[in-house]
């Protein structure tokens, strides 16, 4: 167990700057998750950005994604069968040239195997701003965060509805970029209605941090995004977009959906 040392004072990273700027203008942020290595994924990222994503989260697929529901599991399996690897996806991120911050989202074993320092420095070299590791809890995050801080990678921490206020406080202190509020008890995936826990976690987090608070997991429709943004600074949308990828909707289908989310939350 690593009791986290007092957070070092760091310059605010690119991701946090972008999300704060959106908030300062009175708007809400839209972060879109797509599975890296999925055939044609780079064009879908470009389409998402063109349609108004403030930042993108690129998933580096893992064989055993325990925080992901069926849609992202399927996309991960497709990407892995297509030969996706961590260095391969990172190299492809270098070629994106999209003008918005990129966060990588992956599971800790891939980072551990790559080498913490090497992963952080490689990510920084290819232009990644931030990293999200959903199976690396606060208590175990010290060694990675040290390397990420040193390389200038913002580590976004997840804040779960099960956490006490005291724990959420420590999560917010350690988080960089934004605080990722987990919208419900469960794994990623679309839900027909927005869980009450989505606005509850946002409310709790907003009370204790000035960092941007975005809610993800279970935010499936533009209407749900609007409901969430009445409290949160923004949303992360994953499975709804990835389902379009998996269904073969291509960049156009992804862009259309992202555009719907953008227009809905801009109308708040």
């Amino acid at each position, binding site marked *: 167990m690593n009791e986290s040392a007092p957070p070092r004072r760091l310059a605010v990273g690119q991701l946090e700057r972008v999300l704060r700027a959106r908030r300062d203008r009175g708007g809400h942020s839209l972060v879109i998750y797509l599975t890296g290595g999925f055939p044609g994924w780079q064009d879908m990222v470009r389409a998402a950005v063109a349609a108004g994503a403030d930042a993108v989260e690129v998933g580096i697929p893992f*064989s*055993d994604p325990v925080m992901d529901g069926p849609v992202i599991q399927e996309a991960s399996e497709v990407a892995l069968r297509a030969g996706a690897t961590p260095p391969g996806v990172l190299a492809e991120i270098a070629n994106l040239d999209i003008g918005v911050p990129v966060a990588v989202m992956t599971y800790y074993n*891939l980072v551990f195997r790559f080498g913490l320092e090497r992963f952080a420095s490689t990510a920084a070299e290819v232009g990644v701003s931030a990293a999200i590791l959903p199976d690396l809890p606060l208590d175990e995050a010290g060694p990675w965060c040290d390397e990420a801080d040193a390389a200038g990678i913002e580590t976004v921490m997840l804040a779960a509805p099960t956490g006490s206020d005291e724990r959420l406080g420590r999560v917010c202190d350690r988080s960089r970029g934004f605080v990722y509020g987990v919208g419900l008890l469960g794994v990623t995936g679309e839900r027909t209605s927005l869980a009450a826990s989505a606005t509850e976690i946002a409310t709790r987090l907003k009370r204790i941090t000035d960092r941007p608070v975005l809610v993800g997991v279970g935010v499936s429709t533009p209407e749900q995004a609007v409901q969430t943004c009445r409290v949160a600074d923004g949303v992360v949308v994953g499975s709804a977009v990835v389902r379009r990828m998996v269904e073969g909707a291509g960049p156009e289908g992804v862009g259309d959906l992202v555009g719907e989310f953008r227009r809905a939350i801009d109308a708040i």
Partner: protein
Amino acid sequence: MPETLVPACEELEAAFIEAWADPSYRARLDGLLADYAGRPSPLTRCDRLSAELGCRIWLKREDLNHTGSHKINNVLGQALLAQRMGKARLVAETGAGQHGVATATAAALLGLECCVYMGEVDMARQELNVFRMRLLGAEVRPASSGSRTLKDAVNEAMRDWVATVERSHYCLGSVMGPHPYPWMVREFHRVIGDEAREQFAARVAGTPDVVVACVGGGSNAAGIFAGFAETPARLVGVEPAGGAAVGRGVPGVVHGMVSYLMQDEFGQVEEAQSISAGLDYPGVGPEHAHLADIGRAEYAPVTDDEVVDAFQLLSRTEGIIPALESAHAIAWVSRERAQLAGLSVVINLSGRGDKDVAQMMEILR
């Protein structure tokens, strides 16, 4: 380990520490182990097998426990703990179905809901256990991603627990996963080793030269090793050649633990391949990784063919049909008989083979 589950693991650790120190909890558990599960399990001297292999062999008869394997020790402990914590539902993963059956049994006994995840491949090869679980009132859900075996059942059980953590207890079936599971599950199985040590000392004198157990996640081995860790006995864990996490794995992080893990150069978890569904797991409990690192226990692989031979050997010589998992331990003793000549060997017979008879019938046809 997902952030959502950290508070649940902390709560579980506190509850276990408190319960383990509470005489009323211990009395309830000991009572169930005796009157419901049938403990203590016998230590059986195997004259004909010993004559055939040239060493002196005793079997620790976990196969004679209620539900047919050692798994009941851990499950009764966890189910009582779940009840104490106010959880109404047990979630479990299962490979061969033995842990699932044991969990379904404890749930029926204590009036808890039970949901067991099992790989689709395993559901096909262990059809009988699927039926047993359903008969016991459990819901059996297929794990249909990845290799569709034990590791994927663990993934699905964790996903369920993330969603239902407020009312469910994850009744993990081996000495793996996040703290406190590896430690807690070993403590629930320590009774195997403590009994065997005392039985051997009383009936034979001293301690055995060698203690052997099969290792998938490693719960039966952890239980019997715990009883002999402080003795001079040589401790041997036997892994399937196609799932030898200690033998072939490298350090990794999966299912909330740091341990040896079969994985590719990038850290993608490899699929284990074993004749026995219960050992078809690419990782191993962290304590086994530690025992291997410090040299206190050694780990060796056996092949599926050696296991099939051992399954028949024990059946023929002793009238005991072993689980395919436990047959791994027999197979190692059989193969290594030259170096074991004249030595006293205690083998943990972790389960009985009824569940494997249909599969063996196909293999031997």
